[in-house]
């Protein structure tokens, strides 16, 4: 069963333009990561705090609402974040590369 998870991660991280894939728990601790350990810890701490902040913003605006997906476009890349109750999937990609037909 766990190898299914690793297959999925490998498939994602092998895609053109994808720089890294990280899965975090609710405390920002990495369960799986294709980034180096130092960067993984940074992403874990900072992205989980960004998600927490975004979630609070959304539910404060409308308490019936909740965050479902977060895309952050930057000069260098795009960070895609899929959150659920318990876990977070982070994919860092370079859109200029992934979108080449």
């Amino acid at each position: 069963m766990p190898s299914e998870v690793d297959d999925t991660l490998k498939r994602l991280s092998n895609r053109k333009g994808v720089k890294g894939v990280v899965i975090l728990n609710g405390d920002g601790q990495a369960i799986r990561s294709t980034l180096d350990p130092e960067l993984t810890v940074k992403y874990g701490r900072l992205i989980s705090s960004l998600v927490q902040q975004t979630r609070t913003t959304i539910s404060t605006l409308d308490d019936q609402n909740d965050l479902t997906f977060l895309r952050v476009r930057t000069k260098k890349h795009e960070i895609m974040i899929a959150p659920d109750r318990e876990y977070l999937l982070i994919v860092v990609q370079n859109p200029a590369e992934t979108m080449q037909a």
Partner: protein
Amino acid sequence: EQEKSEEFRDLTEEERKMIVSTPEFLDFVDTSSKVVERALNEKYDFMKDYTLGVDVES
């Protein structure tokens, strides 16, 4: 500082194994990876040609 590194300590291999074997986690990976893959499949870049003052190496 000590407290911070305590708070963000890495999970142990044992803890990781435990999480990865739960149906909730497998469900999460299945669903979230599909959503991300769909986003990655988009061929249209809405920022293209409008990225000001940035040298994007390609």
